């Protein structure tokens, strides 16, 4: 009996920890994240919330993302968050943005969320509403 309780407790602990926090981005329980890891060089996951599904990849980078260059053409720069400010390039049902764990260290994570279906700007903003970005 004891081991069953411990097993269940550990399972929930594992699920909880794994689901809610990833790097400087924190996701609450309304997001379902399934890591896929197709590559050893970047992290890939399937992420969904309220019926909206995306493929999320995260690449670590020592170079800052040039949002304007990336968004040239049909892209549009949109604000996902104000404090700290988080701008992303919305283009072809994809949103790409950059996070930085420490303001003073030039080490970045570049995230791209590729939405499975065509998605509107307000849906994107709504998708990231419960996501937290913690920067020091």
């Amino acid at each position, binding site marked *: 009996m004891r*081991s069953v309780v*411990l*097993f269940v*407790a*550990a*399972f929930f*602990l*594992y*699920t909880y*920890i*794994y689901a*809610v*926090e*990833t*790097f*400087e981005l*924190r996701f609450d329980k309304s997001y379902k994240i399934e*890591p*896929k*890891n*197709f*590559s*050893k*060089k*970047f*992290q*890939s996951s*399937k992420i969904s919330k309220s019926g909206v599904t995306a*493929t*999320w*990849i995260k*690449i*670590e*980078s*020592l*170079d800052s*993302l*040039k949002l304007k*260059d*990336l968004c040239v053409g049909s892209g549009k720069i949109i604000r996902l968050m104000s404090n700290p400010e988080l701008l992303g390039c919305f*283009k*072809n049902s*994809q949103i*790409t943005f*950059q996070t930085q*764990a*420490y303001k003073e*260290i*030039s*080490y970045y994570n*570049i*995230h*791209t*969320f*590729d939405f*499975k279906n065509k998605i509107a700007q307000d849906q994107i903003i709504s998708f990231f509403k419960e996501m937290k970005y913690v920067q020091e």
Partner: protein
Amino acid sequence: MFKNNQISLFIVCCFLVGIPVKFVFSASARADQTAYAGVVETCPFKSAADQSVTDLVDSVKSSLNQLAKDCPQLSERVRQAEQKLISVNVNQKERNSDNSGYYSNMQSPNPSLDGLTLNCRNYKTLLTREQEIAISRIGVTSLPSRYYSCANRDDPAQCINKIFMQSMSESSANCKATLNDKLDEEMTKKIFAAADSFSDLVRESNSCPVTQRTPQLLLNTSSGFLDVLAGVSMNFGLAGALSGFLAKTVGSLLDSQALSDSPKLAIYQLENESNFENIACIWYQLQNRNLRCQEYQVEAVNAQTNRRAVTCPEYLNNTFAGGNNLLSLKSLMQNLNSIEKNSEENSAESLDEIVDLMKKKIPHPIEGPGKAITVENHMAEISEVLAASNLQKDRSQAEKLNRVMHLTKKLVATHQDQTLVSSKKSAELDKIRKEFQTDIKKFNFNEAVDRYWVLKGQTAPSVLLSIESSLAGNKAILNMSQGIDTNIPKIQLTSNFMVKNFNIMFEKRLELVRRRYDAALKDGDTQAVKSHALQLMNLCSMASGMFLSSVDGDDIQVYNALRRINLDKGKYNKACSAISCLDKPKKVLFSSDKKGKELADDFRKHQCQTLLDYDIIVEDLNRRLTATGAICK
């Protein structure tokens, strides 16, 4: 196979025994990808992460060709993708040729990275590896020196990640100052063309019949292809621009017919691949700590140290051709000694021989025939190693050796100087010879060389065991924790839990690897044979305790599974029969006719020695594969 509940059960086990596994699955940066509890920093089961781009490209090419074999209509797409991938790699190679080092005198603070110099080409890999090591050591043993300050922090993992990011950022800035990091337009086009060609290939693979191996092939290809693109693009600062392409490609893979039709063989299996690696590494650490291989290593080194009196003269007497004479380090010393005794005329010949000998290249006495070094540089190296010693006596010997070498050079230069008039030259030579006489008397060459071997041996025990491999090559040993393990009971208990809960998973994996190896042999796929052969050898030899130890449900907390060796393991013996011929430097598969405690002692000795011999075993394996195309023919 590996499931979440097994992970959880393992966490419970570790919580019960106090092993700090929280970082394995914690939210700390990178931890979910790479960190695992314990102290062995790298392990043979994680070797794929270190694949070079060239290896990756070869592996992708092999998978692509198999895809084309299964689905002939993909042949053209495969050819295109292959060509584009090669063009990316060629440029990468050219770029890497400009890898002028920085931090040229900097040694990595971590034992497993010792002897490796950070340069613009390797800093990402080495710093990342070191950070993984630091994370895995939290709460277990001391951190690498770069991360010492993190040990007592509230959140050591966060502290480590911060320092890691800072180091990467600084290294990058250093390299950018010396290298042209701008990517030319042509290369950008090539990378995007490669990404495009692969997306096309994935899309078109949906029209192919799905065979049993299609999902695995597609995953192998994708994984390698994406790694190449991601690696190359990140090196070029192209991560932002390529991330959208990668996301689209990953998305199309998730939607691909082959993968969606065979979930068990596809994503499920891929996830298990990396999870298995982590579990195998945890076992590898536990097994080696449980068997106290660290102590065995010290015992082995001590035993060898006692025999050094025999090996050292051999090393000194080792001759190498030099004109009409056979030269050796011993003759160097004899010549040096003769300088002080002889007159100018008589010593001229000795001086000529010294000049000749100093310029000779010899196989590096430690790093083996692969690295040649001039005698002069070897002398300088001996001096450098002694100078870095903690003992004053060694440092003093280093000074004396430097002085002797300096005076020798001066003596030779003066002797060869044609501009000096005879009387002046003679006076100069006498003056130097007198200094030389005083200094060489204080210097004991044999002792200096002997201390050099000892000092090198402390960082690379393989040296003393005469293993001719690169200094950092003997990972199995270098990766072990420093110091004596004080957590043996916990280690034993956790080992018991692991054997109980993961034995079946390991056996299934072993069977799978054996099947893959046999299939690759049948297909004549050289790359796949090589990869599966190594996996098979690693499982059968490096993780053998998992298969050969025994657990008994009720008294799991009172004994040590690794002291209960059972050689009658049908599945293990059957799967590992493929490596039964590996016998360099001794039989790799364990066998013994002893029983009980003696059998357990035998196993410990065998297993720990196998770790020490790892490089030789891999060399033997590769030699056999090259010669016959199989491990055992």
